[in-house]
């Protein structure tokens, strides 16, 4: 897919998206078939990481809403449905873990603490203060990093489908759910970055500070390393990372520098 593919499809219909939100996937999950086929330890591990990332949605909501992003009613209308869909994605992953008798507890362990990611670990007070100074232009950074995040998890879900063929139909459904999130965030990022050079500056900063995928700062260090190696560790993974980097670089005002630094962060 070309990096700018979504821009040609016209305006994303937030009302239509909200009206056709995907709720529980449990009726379509054949627990017995999954139990019979079994899941490799790596697949279970990846599912647990993805489940925790999807569960972290409310933290992400908070970080967005304490800034001027909460004033953008089109974005908040999207977020209400987005959070709902992600809740049920996490629930579907829990159902899969349950089917094979895997541990469903959240992952626990020491976190990775690098200086480069310090900004990502800020609490709501510092985010709100920084967000107030940045004002409405901060939304561009939020939608641009949100887009990259969705593309990363999409790559992870594709990997999951390859690693566990019994999950291929569920994975296809989850990717379809997430494709609409990608479409909205891509369109918003394009519009907002094209509209303001200050938005571009703030987005560049947000991208430089981000830990990927978003919410990774709360995932134990060992599990993050596993995720990076499993999703982006081989040649195919590297190509996927480069495609995401190219997509980011093609956004208005961004370029090779942002794309390359993203790829460097993703590929172990």
């Amino acid at each position, binding site marked *: 897919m070309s990096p700018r593919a979504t821009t040609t499809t016209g305006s994303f219909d*937030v*009302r239509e998206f*909200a*009206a056709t*939100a995907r*709720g*529980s996937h449990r009726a379509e999950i054949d627990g017995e078939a999954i139990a019979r086929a079994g899941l490799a330890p790596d697949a279970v591990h990846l599912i647990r990481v993805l489940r925790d990332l999807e*569960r972290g*949605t*409310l*933290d992400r*909501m*908070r970080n967005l*809403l*304490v800034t001027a992003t*909460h*004033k*953008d*009613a*089109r974005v*908040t*209308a999207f*977020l*209400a*449905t987005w*959070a*709902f869909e992600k*809740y049920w994605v996490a629930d579907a992953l829990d159902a899969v873990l349950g089917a094979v008798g895997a541990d469903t507890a959240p992952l626990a362990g020491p976190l990775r603490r690098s200086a480069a990611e310090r900004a990502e670990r800020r*609490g*709501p*007070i510092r985010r*709100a*203060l920084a967000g*107030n100074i940045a004002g*409405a232009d901060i939304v561009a950074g939020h939608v641009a990093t949100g887009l990259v995040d969705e593309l990363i998890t999409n790559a992870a879900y594709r990997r999951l489908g390859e690693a566990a063929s019994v999950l291929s139909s569920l994975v296809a459904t989850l990717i379809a759910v997430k494709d609409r999130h990608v479409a909205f965030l891509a369109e918003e990022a394009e519009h907002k970055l094209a509209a303001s050079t200050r938005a571009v500056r703030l987005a560049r900063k947000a991208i430089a500070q981000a830990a990927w995928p978003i919410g990774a700062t709360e995932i134990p260090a060992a599990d993050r390393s596993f995720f990076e190696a499993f999703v982006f560790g081989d040649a195919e993974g590297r190509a996927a990372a480069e495609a995401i980097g190219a997509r980011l670089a093609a956004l208005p005002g961004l370029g090779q520098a942002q794309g390359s630094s993203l790829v460097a962060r993703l590929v172990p």
Partner: protein
Amino acid sequence: MAFDIDKYTTNSAAVGWSDLDFDVFDEHPLPENTLRTLRYMCDIEYHTTCYLRDLLTTPSHNEPEVGAFMTMWNREEFWHGEALAAVLAKHGITVDYDVLKATRLKLGWKDRLDPIKQSIMGGLVGNDFVAVHMSWGAANEWSANAAYLRMAELEGNPVLAELLKRIAKQETRHVAFYASQARDRLKDSKKAQKLTRFALSKFWGPVGSGVQDDAEVTHVMNHLFAGPDGRKLVRDVDSHIAKLPGMEGLTIVEDSLERRGIAA
């Protein structure tokens, strides 16, 4: 009684109105003062995001049950906004996302400081602060429920009444969640009780005050709760709040009417 979160999330749905014939409003349009109140209600529902933000800055959302509720609640309230916007649209009143954005931008510094204030309070007081949020939420949902049912009764339009009853039914479930959370958190902590009592009696105002113009708040309070019948409903809401542990004798909703000079 414990709130069954799995049942709630599984049954959570966008309020429906496609089976309701909104074309009746072409023949029988709603009067101006009703539209003004509906517009207020619609804005408030859309603004749930702003309340969600305040809740998320406290430690409460880390509990899976609370996080699950907030996700569904936020979406249901958004749909209440959409439903009311559809009624307003039949009367040529467009509630567009851009208009909502303008309202929020107008809030200015007070709104910007809120998450900071809330976070500091949440950080200082910790888990007991969650009791304040839950009790506050219960008070809001009880009054919203009363407001919708009252509006349905006052207007007497069967299509509007049916829609408002559907919305109120969902608000009833929100009440159940907030009240059960508030009770659990208040019953074991004198500190939480003191803090909640202080916050509700000092700072609580009708849902939407602080977001909407004062004149609009007063209009809605007058429209829905003026007169003996309205006052009785308000006292019912107060009596629910007063049953929460440590909240005996509180009359915050009636007090807010008194302060606005709404006649009993």
